């Protein structure tokens, strides 16, 4: 059999796949095992086209989510891994790595990834800045007096105002982000903090959470929401496959 196999991840050899889970192009998902500790979660690789359509990413995530929801521990692979055929999955992927992959499975078993994203409510944080930083409020007030038809003349002043606001927001972010993180991180086993993508982002962090501590962590996040809801929008995304907690190499 020489059909290239797309690999979603690796699980234990004795795992049972949830029924009806389909992969890329809705192809059936199967386990390939070599008799060792681990089995690869695969489906046939779609032929004759490049991968990376939205539906492909969704399928990758769907397969891993389905395993996780069924309580099957999995080492999630990054999108885009495929081997020549089932034989290659057995001989090249599993045979030499079963032991190491098995250890990773042990570390991830009974744990999920939860991702917390916190973003400032724009109007609320702008009001805070206007109230707390007279220099910025003054510049804003001055620019507001400028008639619309003269707006071009103060273009650089407007840029400057925005820059000051962005800086003020960053100072707040350092403080708020750290406070949010500290309130939750103790409920997790590990965390990975990501650099915020936008000025309004306060915190973007993924936690590795043992199942029996998940409720506790969610409660801590809820409390944060109650404390900061007016000014910071908090989302807790997941449970996700533990992408952030697999070895780098």
């Amino acid at each position, binding site marked *: 059999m020489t059909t*290239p196999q797309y690999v979603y*991840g*690796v699980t234990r050899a004795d795992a049972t796949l949830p029924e009806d*889970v389909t992969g890329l192009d809705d192809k059936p998902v199967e386990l390939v095992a070599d008799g060792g500790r681990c089995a690869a979660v695969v489906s046939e690789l779609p032929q004759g086209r*490049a*991968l*990376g*359509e*939205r*539906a492909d*990413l969704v399928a990758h*995530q769907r397969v891993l989510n389905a395993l996780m*929801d069924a309580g099957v521990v999995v*080492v999630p692979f*990054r*999108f885009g*891994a*495929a*081997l020549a055929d089932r034989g*290659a999955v057995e001989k*090249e992927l599993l045979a*030499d*790595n079963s032991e*190491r992959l098995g250890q990773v499975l042990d570390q991830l078993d009974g744990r999920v990834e939860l991702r917390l*994203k916190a973003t400032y409510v*724009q*109007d609320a944080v*702008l*009001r805070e800045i*206007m109230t707390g930083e007279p220099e910025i409020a003054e510049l*804003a*007030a001055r*620019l*507001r007096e400028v008639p619309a038809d003269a707006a071009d003349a103060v273009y650089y002043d*407007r*840029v400057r105002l*925005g*820059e000051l606001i962005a800086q003020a927001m960053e100072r707040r972010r350092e403080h708020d982000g750290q406070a949010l993180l500290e309130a939750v991180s103790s409920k997790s086993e590990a965390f990975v903090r990501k650099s915020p*993508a*936008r*000025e309004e*982002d306060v915190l973007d962090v*993924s936690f590795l959470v043992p199942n029996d501590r998940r409720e506790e962590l*969610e409660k801590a996040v*809820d409390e944060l*929401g109650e404390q900061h*809801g007016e000014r910071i*929008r*908090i*989302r*807790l*995304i*997941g449970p*996700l496959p533990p*992408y*952030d907690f*697999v*070895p*780098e*190499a």
Partner: protein
Amino acid sequence: MTGPIAQQTSGSQTVQRGRSGSSLADVVDLILEKGLVIDLYARVSLVGIEILTVDVRIVVASVDTYLRFAEAVNRLDIAHDGTSQGLPQFVGGMQESGAKKKTRGALEGASERLKETFGSSDSDDDEDDEKQTARRRSSRKKEDDE
């Protein structure tokens, strides 16, 4: 996000929780940048598959961001005066949605790109996701106008 997932409702009204309200945008960076890379881990002969997805992060240009803040603060002050009801508030509302459109995040930019390039035929999409697409499209339009 999709699939046979039990919906989890949030325990508090202030925190949005679970997968139901999240979109591909919330995880696309994980799928593409995280997870085990088997050619690093194992010496295996991966099939050379062409991956379409690039540019996961689209950095928001600084000046654009600054001007957006300046505009938002200006609008904020007008709304605060209390002297100008009616039209200015209405305009303020319009600007608000405009500004928010432009803030749609870097990560969503990636799925936008995917959607726009390849179309969204994903029937699993929830309604919220569709709305986001519409917003993102109009956001792009707005930026093009400027």
